[in-house]
């Protein structure tokens, strides 16, 4: 549904996207992660043909946004980060008006049902200006879904929602993608949302894709660099470590280490080698490998390098 290869994009002489790769298949809920200013929103705008690329290949639903932007947008539901509405309109009138851009045959009943689905059925006739932020977020989701799109793109959809509201939006998204024919691109900084919803992720930082793949594979891969907490009988010699091991710190009587071993081998031999080098290990506790670790280990690298050079 989305295939991006080495997308580069320049805005006002500044290279914003330097090499974005993304592959989203039908049925995927794809989490696009990255720090603020990484280029997530710009990538979305490039997908919709709102930003012209400098180079690279972009295909959305089989079309090129540079040539078929309007046709692509007809099949894509978008919830932008800023959920702007005409506040003098009622929610029902607004959805009726907006859906006319997609399908002139849709009826007021469709829009009413959609508002019911996002929990705004009773507020449908109220002017949007009287809505809370959370209600506007729900209305934005309804707006994205109203055209029954093949692809749904959501930029920070659960911002400003309470836990119940977040759960309802999660349920809507899972329901939307459950037929296996549609796809969801979820752009967020909330790793919890990604953990709950997504099967694939892409991490971008400073305009480049740092990592892409299925969450299961990435977490398995990350375990090759698993972190452990070690409780020791004595003070160890941190200057004499076996290959593949790094000491991360010492906290509350525990030594935190990261070991790089092949998943097939496991760390047992490493512990034996450590014991031989004077590390009298009393207890070993693995730290759960999480999405957060994957995220942290693939973002901020260029900034850190720049700081080191400075």
């Amino acid at each position: 549904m989305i295939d991006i290869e080495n997308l580069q994009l320049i805005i006002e002489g500044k290279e914003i996207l330097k090499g974005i790769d993304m592959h989203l298949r039908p049925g995927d809920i794809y989490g696009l992660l990255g720090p603020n200013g990484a280029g997530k929103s710009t990538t979305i705008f490039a997908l919709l043909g709102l930003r012209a690329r400098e180079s690279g290949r972009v295909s959305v639903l089989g079309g090129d946004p540079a040539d078929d932007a309007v046709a692509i947008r007809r099949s894509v539901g978008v919830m932008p980060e800023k959920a702007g509405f005409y506040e003098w309109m009622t929610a029902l009138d607004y959805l009726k008006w907006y859906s006319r851009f997609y399908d002139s045959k849709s009826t007021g009943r469709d829009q009413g049902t959609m508002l019911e689905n996002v929990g705004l059925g009773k507020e449908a006739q109220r002017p949007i200006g009287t809505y809370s932020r959370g209600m506007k977020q729900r209305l934005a989701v309804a707006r994205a879904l109203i055209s029954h799109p093949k692809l749904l793109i959501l930029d920070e959809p659960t911002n400003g929602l309470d836990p119940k509201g977040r759960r309802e939006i999660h349920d809507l998204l899972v329901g939307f993608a459950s037929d296996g024919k549609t796809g969801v691109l979820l752009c967020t900084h909330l790793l919890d949302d990604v953990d709950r919803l997504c099967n694939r992720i892409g991490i971008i930082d400073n305009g480049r894709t740092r990592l892409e793949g299925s969450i299961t594979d990435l977490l398995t891969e990350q375990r090759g660099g698993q972190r452990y907490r070690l409780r020791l009988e004595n003070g160890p010699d941190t200057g004499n470590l076996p290959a593949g091991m790094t000491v991360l710190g010492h906290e509350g009587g525990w030594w935190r280490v990261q070991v790089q071993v092949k998943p097939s081998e496991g760390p047992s031999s490493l512990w034996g080698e450590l014991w031989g080098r004077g590390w009298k290990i009393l207890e070993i506790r693995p730290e759960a490998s999480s999405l957060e670790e994957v995220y942290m280990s693939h973002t901020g690298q260029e900034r850190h390098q720049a700081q080191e050079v400075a």
Partner: protein
Amino acid sequence: MMNTTWIIAGKENAQMLRSQRGMVWLLIFSGLLSAFSLLLVSNTELSLLDNAQVVYMMAGTVMAAGALLAAILGSDAYAGEKERGTLVPLLCAPIATNALLAGKVLGLLAAWGVMLMTSVPYLWAVGASGQNLGPALFYLVLFGTPVVLGFGYLAMALSARTGSVMTSQFTTVTLLMLSASPLLIGPGLRGTIIGRALDAVNPFAGALNTFDSVIIDSEPFSAQTARFLLVAVWLVLCLLAARRSANRPDFQ
């Protein structure tokens, strides 16, 4: 594309009415015309003006007010939507950039139409029960409309390019004031080389001189060809600028 254009135009018109912005503008416009009419009939010196002269002045005022409205609405067209966060949802919908621009302009055209209709009783009243009313309305439509739409397009071009209502409004209104200066500087200065050169390239002056020519001097339309060309070129240039900016608006 036409369908999309009408959907946007419909929203623009509804917004003018239901957000009360349009009603406020209409009240201000009516108040301005009422005050001007009152001045024309009650002021000792102005009441001595020739009937055609009075209609000519009123027509110029209507066109200036229309251009001012165009500057305001045009500036809001893209930058106002951006500032309210409503531009991105529009751009994400399957709307061609030209359709969006056309919808906005149709909204502006409707507002100008309402202003023209509002001005009819005033033109009728100050023209001593309808004298010169026909030529005044005809030439307001024929020459005033391109001038007003041109300012609207120009404001939209700036609005889309800069993403700032303030910048667009300030620039367009300043240009409008410069264009309307023939109204202010008086016939003496307009007779000089500089005044004539300004008139030759100034679409506002072109339309105004046409009003003068047809309402006061009763000259035929054939004598207005050069001026008509001037306002048409102005409209086309502003349209091209707006289309260019609207293709890549500042929305982020």
